């Protein structure tokens, strides 16, 4: 079932562009994903995530650049490499008059899997047992998403390409799928997923690519993301005006907001006790002094330049 193991990146995208008429959907994107990584492509709706995924899967032909999966160039003649790739693109789809089991049977046959037990195993794994004999037109959005994931996982692929895998899932389902993807990655499966929910991506991905207007704006590891998220010191005193003067004299950059004073200086964030001491010495002890982390969405919007938070 699996193609021969080749060294090098599992996904290798080099200078890929794709345009539809005047619209440049993907603009000279290059990225590499190594075996066992969970790579998340993060972007707003229309940023180019799905187009890039379709390029990876050979569904659309790029205007420029090249794509290779497991070292094999993706083109119209590519067939065997798909034995190692499972995918879910956009909203999950299924034949509505077929049952869950029959839909998976269709995938099993087209994926040329001789072992019929993979269908039952996958149904069990995705928690679709109670719905196995139900026609898919009656499934809820969450269960349709599970079926979409089941189709992607049926053949135990070495590479999973998932477009918004958490769509439609309830909170428990999101956690369950996240744990499953993490466990698959631990077993060596490479996961490439897209999302517009940074908080979800931050919990799961080992590496994140931020795409905006078709361009890959930034790539960073999950650890680097935590570091880059802007932190600030938030202070409230009985006399914010005097406190601001005291801190400015002490060398901090201070601004006021609705809740009190904000200090962005790294030294203040890393040593808030120094700020507290300065205020106490000036006779204005802080009533509140907290280090606030920027929320991830604000960071993301700042990174793509939608607004400067």
């Amino acid at each position, binding site marked *: 079932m699996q193609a021969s193991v080749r060294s090098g990146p599992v996904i290798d995208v080099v200078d890929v562009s794709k345009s539809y008429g005047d619209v440049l959907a993907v603009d000279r994107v290059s990225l590499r994903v190594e075996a066992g990584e969970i790579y998340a492509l993060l972007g707003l709706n229309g940023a180019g995530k799905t187009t890039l995924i*379709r390029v990876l*899967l*050979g*569904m*659309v*032909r790029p205007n420029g650049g090249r794509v290779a999966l497991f070292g094999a160039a993706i083109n*119209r003649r590519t*067939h*065997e490499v*798909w*034995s190692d*790739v499972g*995918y879910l*693109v*956009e*909203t999950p*789809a*299924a*034949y*509505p*008059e*077929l049952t869950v089991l*029959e839909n998976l*049977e*269709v*995938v099993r*046959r*087209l*994926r*040329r899997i001789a072992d019929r037990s993979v269908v039952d195993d996958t149904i069990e794994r995705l928690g679709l047992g109670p719905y196995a004999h139900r026609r898919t037109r009656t499934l809820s959005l969450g269960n349709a998403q599970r079926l979409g994931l089941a*189709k992607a996982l049926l053949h135990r692929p070495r590479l999973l390409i998932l477009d918004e895998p958490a769509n439609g899932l309830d909170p428990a389902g999101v956690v369950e799928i996240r744990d499953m993807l993490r466990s698959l990655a631990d077993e060596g499966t490479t996961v490439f997923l897209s999302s517009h929910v940074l908080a979800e991506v931050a919990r799961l991905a080992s590496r994140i690519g931020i795409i905006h207007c078709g361009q890959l704006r930034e790539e960073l590891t999950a650890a680097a993301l935590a570091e880059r998220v802007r932190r600030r010191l938030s202070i409230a005193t009985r006399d914010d005006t005097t406190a601001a003067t005291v801190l400015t004299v002490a060398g901090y950059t201070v601004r006021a907001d609705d809740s009190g004073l904000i200090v962005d200086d790294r030294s203040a964030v890393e040593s808030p006790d120094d700020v507290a001491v300065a205020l106490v010495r000036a006779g204005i002890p802080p009533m509140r002094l907290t280090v606030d982390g920027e929320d991830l969405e604000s960071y993301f919007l700042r990174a793509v330049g939608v607004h400067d938070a």
Partner: protein
Amino acid sequence: MREAIITEVLKARRSRLPWLSVAAFGVATAVGALFMFILADPDRARSLGLLGAKAQLSGATADWPGYLSFLAQTTAVGGIGVFGVIVIWTFGREFSDHTAKDLLALPTPRTTIVAAKFAVTGVWCLLLALQTYVLGLAAGAALQLPGWDGATALRGLARLLTVAIMTWLLVSVLALAASAWQGYLAAVGLMFLIVFLAQIVATLGYGHIFPWSVPGVLSGLSGGDRPAVGVLGYALVAIVGAAGTVATVLWWRNADQNR
């Protein structure tokens, strides 16, 4: 190929379309039998008024050659509609149900999947033609139509199957339409246009060289005073069939798939 065909058969079996197509061709056979019943007795035709007049206008004669010719004619005319719907559904449903994307990155090549779809629709259409023939034999025997002999029966079967195969070849362009326009609606519109043009061109006397009119002319629909189908007519049907099939395969293999 075998696995792709099995999946196409499963999808077709679970839909209502096979039963609807069986019913449509069953009704056509029954209408033919009714016409034979009416035409067998001139007094009966007169007493039935409009229905009797319609039966007489069909130009059929109440005997086995007339009935078998009538069945071939209904296959030629109804075939574009029913075979067309079968082909449009088989290809267009992948876009209407958004399942096409799940067929594009598989170890089974896209060309195999398209070939399986054509194979299943071909067998489906042939079975409908055979159903028409078998039901026709039963109805003709029940009506005790005159003029039965083995050669007439075989000629009738050969003509019916030829008309069915030609009609199936001609609706291959609807597979391309349902694929390229990604759904049913535009392809159904094209089908109506084809049926309309086939009637007009046949009426103008050029049916023997207009591919979509050829099955009708071959079945005897246009009457004996019009030119018969020659090599050019057969060749044009084969060319349209091949072009529609190859273009559909190429489209599935090469076109950007965004749905």
